[in-house]
């Protein structure tokens, strides 16, 4: 299973994208194409989740939502602690970076779904709901830490304190485009009639895997572009980009397997969610809300280190760990 998982087309197209950049090819997606594809992917996965959720257990859904919120709050706090250890990383950078790790990456999640489907493993719909929920809490944690830091520094230095503008930031945390499309499609998938949904499925189901390949080709190029900045980031940050998903993934397996009683497929997906780091919703929020932090760090880490780590190592690893933990 281990190396096999790397030979699914989705992962191979990711590798192709990385190689394209490493050999300095001029391959480039036209502006807007990746964003268009990601709207499609979110819509498709949302509809799929919604259709499954329509037949799911209400109480377990609520419990999933609660645990998703808890994970979203805990992970950035753990991350912040790690980064501030021995005062290695300054508090603003630490706050902004760790916020990315409490949130999620839909592309990682979808690659994991592709992995399960290629292997014929079934999974529950709850992780899709959890993905929606986990977009937001981490942003709030990141902003709160930055606000406290700002207050403390202002008190110490006696300078005029910069007020955090909570309004627009909280708003952004809960209404960013990914959340809206995912949640909206989820509700539509759960409420529209099955016959009417079946007309939509050739678009949202049949061609899904192929579109994902195209998307991962571009993600590979983006990830590789970040490699340059890696040197500047330094060993501490790069190590963080590998250790943090290991912590998140382990936490996800425990919560999925024990607290929520998911099957192997569902537990594995929750592990991947927890292990993954955001690179769509959180970066703009941190740029706007924590302007004191250096933006080149967080994208480098989430896209250049953690995303490829999860796709290449995390997916087979967490799958094995889940089987071992739950006992196949």
């Amino acid at each position: 299973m281990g190396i096999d998982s790397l030979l699914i087309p989705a992962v191979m197209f990711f590798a192709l994208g990385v190689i394209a950049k490493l050999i300095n090819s001029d391959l480039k997606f036209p502006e807007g194409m990746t964003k268009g594809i990601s709207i499609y992917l979110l819509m498709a996965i949302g509809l799929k989740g919604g259709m499954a959720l329509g037949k799911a257990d209400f109480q377990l859904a609520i419990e999933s939502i609660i645990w998703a919120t808890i994970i979203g709050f805990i992970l950035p706090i753990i991350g912040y602690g790690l980064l501030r250890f021995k005062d290695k990383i300054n508090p603003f950078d630490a706050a902004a970076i760790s916020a990315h790790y409490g949130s999620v990456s839909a592309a990682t999640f979808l690659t994991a779904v592709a992995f399960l489907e290629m292997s014929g493993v079934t999974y529950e719909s709850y992780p899709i709901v959890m993905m929606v929920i986990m977009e937001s809490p981490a942003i709030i944690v990141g902003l709160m830490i930055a606000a406290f830091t700002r207050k403390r520094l202002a008190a110490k230095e006696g300078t005029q304190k910069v007020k955090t503008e909570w309004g627009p930031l909280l708003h952004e945390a809960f209404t960013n485009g990914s959340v809206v499309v995912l949640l909206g499609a989820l509700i539509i998938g759960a409420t529209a009639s099955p016959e009417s949904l079946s007309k939509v499925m050739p678009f949202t189901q049949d061609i899904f895997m192929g579109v994902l390949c195209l998307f991962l080709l571009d993600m590979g190029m983006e990830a590789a572009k970040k490699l340059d900045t890696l040197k500047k980031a330094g060993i501490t940050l790069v190590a963080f980009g590998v250790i943090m998903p290991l912590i998140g993934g382990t936490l996800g397996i425990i919560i999925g397997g024990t607290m929520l009683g998911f099957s192997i497929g569902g537990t594995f997906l929750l592990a991947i969610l927890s292990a993954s780091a955001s690179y769509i919703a959180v970066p703009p929020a941190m740029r706007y809300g924590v302007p004191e932090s250096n933006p080149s760090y967080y994208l480098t880490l989430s896209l250049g280190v953690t995303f490829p780590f999860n796709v290449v190592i995390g997916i087979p690893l967490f799958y094995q760990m889940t089987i071992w933990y739950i006992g196949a």
Partner: protein
Amino acid sequence: MSTKMCTGKSIQIIINSTFENKLIHILKKNGLTGYTQLSARGDGSSGVQDGHSEGESNVMFIVLASNSATNTLMEQLNQYRNMGYHIFVYTHDAEVLNSDKIQICQ
């Protein structure tokens, strides 16, 4: 015989696209209701902005304004700059044909 034009400033402001709405708000508060926006990429101290994702794109605003309105705006933008926002601003002397509808010719 040349068409009468009146003098003012063209203000160029380059910011990350996440601040787009905020800057529009600032302009409006200053009574600057006219502006032009261009999607931009670039490089500088906050790294390459290659236009790939929303957070890595720039916007270039061009605002034609009177000399005095320009001074006021510069002061305010300077404050944001001091707060840590990456904002790049420069001005040119300009001659404007549309004297009537923007507050340039006093």
